[in-house]
């Protein structure tokens, strides 16, 4: 066999080593999770968007209801306590006028 054959075969081996080392290095330097993370962020954002819109709407309504109840409590005579379920009071404590809380089961004057 001609010497050039040995040179070619040896050169191919060296090329294989250099190419595979470069492949490992380049893949190792890259951020392989970047695209996956971007995709996950987009999916989560799209799915959360609807839920957050609904949540904002519910918070707006709850705020309005709290203000209406507060206004009613201010327009009713002192010592008036509506008849309320203790369970509901426990849940809506932050929404009810403070003077109506702490009197569970109280009855209106009439």
């Amino acid at each position, binding site marked *: *066999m001609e010497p050039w*054959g*040995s040179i*070619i*075969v*040896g*050169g*191919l*081996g*060296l*090329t*294989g*080593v250099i*190419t*595979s*080392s470069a*492949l*490992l*290095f*380049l*893949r*190792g*330097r*890259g*951020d*392989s*999770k970047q695209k996956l993370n971007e995709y996950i962020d987009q999916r989560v954002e799209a799915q959360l968007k609807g839920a957050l819109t609904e949540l904002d709407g519910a918070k707006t309504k709850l705020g309005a209801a709290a203000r209406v109840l507060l206004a009613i409590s201010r327009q009713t005579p002192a010592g008036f306590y509506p008849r309320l379920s203790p369970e509901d009071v426990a849940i809506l404590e932050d929404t009810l006028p403070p003077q109506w809380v702490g009197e569970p089961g109280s009855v209106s004057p009439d």
Partner: protein
Amino acid sequence: MIRRLWAASIWHPDAIPLDEWKYRNLKRVLLPIVDVFLIWCGIWAGIQGIPAIDVFFVDWVSDSFSYLFAAAAVLALIGVAFPRLWWVEAGANIVLSGLLASYLGALMLLTLPSIGSRGFVSGLAGVALGVVIWRLSLLGGEWAERRSEGDE
């Protein structure tokens, strides 16, 4: 000792991340089998020599080729069995890719000038080289993930 080895091995239930679960048998079955066959090739190369390589190189180079091939295949198997030794596997696969590229080149040179008899086995050598390079690409990607997670 055995329990610690088992916990560190690729066959431990916690060794594969959930996002790779579908492809777990690539690492647990396919790659170890490939490495076992590469060891088989290396052992037989050491015993019988590699005719295609013997044509191009003197005996000691040809023998070194065989022993280096067997040693690299053993290290690649150890590396795939224990993921923490990924750098051992990467080094072994770089050596294997060089040796397989040489072997593929030798077979091609013996086949292409005339219609030789090594066409089939040169194709198989190409398949083995492809698997080794693909594994190196995976190892590189995993290295990048470790870096981005701050492990290194």
